[in-house]
Each structure stands twice: as C-alpha cells, then as structure tokens.
C-alpha cells in the first residue's frame, strides 16, 4: 500500500470516498435546515438543532466531518497540480465544450467557490453556535440555544446574504452534478447500464440539494 495515496487512482479514490461522505453530511444538513420552512415560531428548527447538538453520534462524527472536508480540499489541490503538470504546453484553439460539460472541467473552481461560501457560513453560524452567546429558549421544559433566531435574523435583515446563500446552493448543485456519478465511477461502481442511471440520479440529487438550500433564504426573502 506504500504509494497508494500518490498513485493517480489512489488519489481519486480518496476524493471519491471523502466526497461521498460529505454528500451524506449534506443530506442530513439539508434535512434539518428544511425544518426552518415549516414553523415560523422556530420551535421545530430549534428542536432539530438541539437534537443535532446533543446527539452523541453527531458529536463523534463532527471531527470526522472536519477531517473529511480537509482531506477533500487538500487532495483536490494535489490532484489538480499533478494533472496540470501533465500538459505543459496548452492548445491555441480548443473546443472543449463539445466533448465535456463546463462543470466537469472546472470542479476545482466550483469547489474553491464553495469553500469561500463555507468559510462565510462557518463564521456566520457555526462559530456563534459553538462559542455560545446565543440567547436561550425554553421548549417543553428544556433549555436550548435559539438557533432559529440566529438564522432567521440574518436572512430577515440582509438581502445580500440571502442572495449569497442562494448562489452558494447553486454552486454546490453544479459541483454535485458532476461529483455524484463521478464518485461512483472512480470506485468502479459503474458499468454500461449504471453509468447513465448514476448520471441521472446525480442530476436529480444536485437539483434537490441546490433548490433545497436556496429555497430557505428565498422563503425568508419573500415572506418577511
């Protein structure tokens, strides 16, 4: 196994596994976030957020998730550097759009933009939640953070942030539109039948994630 992590397929394997892991996180994250839409008093979302914050399984997975992000990001740069070196002289005229999609050729760019969004997102929500300072609320006799006030407050007060979060959802959607089936192809779970199926499922997944995340700021933008 000595040079597995530097072999081309080995590196891609790392990207694939970390990517699939991050996709599972995105599903959970989206599921909890959508609670924002169904109860304007915030109780439902606060209960969901409190469940996530106090669940021992989530506590264990949190550092693993952080590691997943770090690995996925570092390896993306390693792979891109290796691939960049494989073509020292480029073409004068290239019609790449004929044979591949823009998203598939620019996963690093899309990923980097998602990373910029992620940093903003962590500063706005993750850090305030973790460092305290949030107002407390009582639901059914249990004291918990009023996370709803933090999220709803931001979206109600700033049109700019609403738009940035909608863009963030769209960027993630484009990234996943290629990333989903690509992850399965890389670990070899694809063949003449499943290739097309996975590409179709990937597109649906990407649209669900993009629309799902974008609809939340849109909801606050329109309703309030």
């Amino acid at each position, binding site marked *: *196994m000595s040079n597995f992590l530097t072999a081309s397929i080995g590196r891609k394997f790392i990207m694939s596994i970390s990517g699939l892991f991050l996709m599972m996180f995105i599903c959970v994250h989206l599921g909890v976030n959508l609670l924002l839409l169904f109860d304007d008093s915030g109780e439902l979302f606060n209960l969901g957020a409190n469940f996530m914050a106090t669940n021992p399984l989530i506590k264990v997975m949190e550092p693993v998730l952080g590691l997943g992000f770090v690995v996925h990001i570092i390896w993306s740069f390693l792979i891109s550097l*290796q691939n960049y070196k494989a073509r020292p002289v480029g073409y004068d005229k290239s019609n790449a759009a004929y044979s591949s999609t823009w998203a598939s050729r620019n996963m690093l760019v899309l990923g980097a933009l998602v990373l910029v969004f992620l940093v903003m997102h962590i500063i706005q929500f993750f850090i305030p939640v973790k460092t305290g300072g949030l107002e407390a609320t009582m639901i059914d006799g249990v004291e918990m953070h009023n996370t709803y006030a933090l999220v709803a407050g931001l979206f109600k007060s700033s049109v700019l942030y609403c738009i940035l979060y909608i863009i963030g959802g769209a960027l993630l959607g484009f990234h996943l539109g290629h990333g989903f089936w690509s992850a399965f192809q890389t670990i070899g779970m694809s063949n003449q039948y499943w290739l097309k199926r996975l590409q179709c499922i990937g597109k649906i997944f990407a649209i669900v994630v993009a629309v799902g995340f974008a609809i939340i700021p849109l909801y606050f933008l329109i309703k309030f």
Partner: protein
Amino acid sequence: MENTINLTLKVWRQNGPKDKGRFETYKVENISTDSSFLEMMDILNEQLIKENKEPVAFDHDCREGICGMCSLYINGRPHGPDDDVTTCQLHMRKFKDGETVTIEPWRAAAFPVIKDLMVDRTAFDKIIAAGGYVSVSTGGVPDANAIPIPKVDADEAMDAASCIGCGACVAACKNSSAMLFVSAKVSQLALLPQGRVEAKARAKAMIAKMDELGFGGCTNTGACEVECPKGVSITNIARLNRQYLAARFSE
C-alpha cells in the same frame, strides 16, 4: 459535381523536441471537398516543396482509419470536426470555403513533439509492455471452443479491443490522462477467461507505468469517449478502477 474550397491554414511548426515552436500561416486553394484532410496536407506540402520550403511533418500510415498513426488537433478537436473518425477519414466537405483551420499536435507531457505535428507516442508502447498482454505457455493450439465465453462478454471485449492507440483520448483530456487507452487495453483482456489470470498484476503494472510516464489522472469529464475515433466507452475506466482498487486492497 465537384466543389472546391480555399482555406487558410494555421499550422504548428517546430524544428525539433528542443525548439520552442511557432504557428505559421499558409493558404491552400482549389481543395476538392471530396479529398481527405491528409490529402489536403499532401497538397500543402507539395506547394511548400515547390517554394523551396520545408514540408510540414505529420504522422500517417494506413489512411483507412485502422492503424492509429494519424493524429492532429484540428480546430480545437482531436481528429477534427467529425465524430468517430480518424484524421485520415476526415473529409474536406466538413470545412467551409474561406475558413481558417488551426492544426496543432497532441499536447501532453508524455507525448513530446518530435517535429511539427508529429509527437512521440512510445509512452503507449511502454504501458502495453508493462502488462498489456497474456502470458501464454507454449504447446499445441487450444481448441477454439474449449473455453466457452458469453456473447455479451465477447462483444464488450471486442468493443474495448477496437482501440487503435492513436492517443486522441490523451489529446482531448484536460489532464492529458491515458485512462481510456489503459482501460481499453485492460478490459479487452480482463473480460476474457484467458486474461483474468494476470488481471490484478496487469492493472497495477499498467497504472504504475502510466503515472510514471507523466500522464494525468482521470477526472471523469468524458471528453475522451466523445473524441475517441472508435467510440471506446468510459465504462472501461470504471472497470479499470475496480480492478486496480481490488488489486491494491488484496495486497
């Protein structure tokens, strides 16, 4: 009813591997739309020879689309603007009168330019030599029907075997990856019982050689499959990934 067209050619000229290279512009006139792209190149070269200029060096051999020798990155696409053909099978009817045609060599670190539009593709031979074969014990020829092979497997192996090793996949790939070539060469053997014996060692050896020679990795853009003159499928790449990972994990 023969039509003729006039073209402006923007051709990559490079005296040798160490030369920096540059584009030069030539005009060709009265090119029959029924001629092939390489015949047009021949006409250009005759013209250059008459003008006492150095003719353009380009690779070609069988000129019937099966040897894999011709290359050329024409107007931004390997083997030019037609689908599922090699440059020798590309016809001038695919071009418009007065058009400027840009002709470049394959671009990859693993395919250094020898001269003008010719590149050194021995990297592919080295990958094959690393494991793209079946070791056969000597003796009498086995009966053809001694090992039954399902039709589906035979067809898929044959499709993979249609790879002519031209390198269009490497030229089309933004990473100059040779994964479609290697996966076709692995698949044509891995799908058949005779090839399965050495499958694990083969996948490992050929990928190690591919990496060593400076080809990039696969990012699944799918450009190779679209530009492949033989339509070799990227599902072969999934099979190669599967075989390689299985081989590494069973170490």
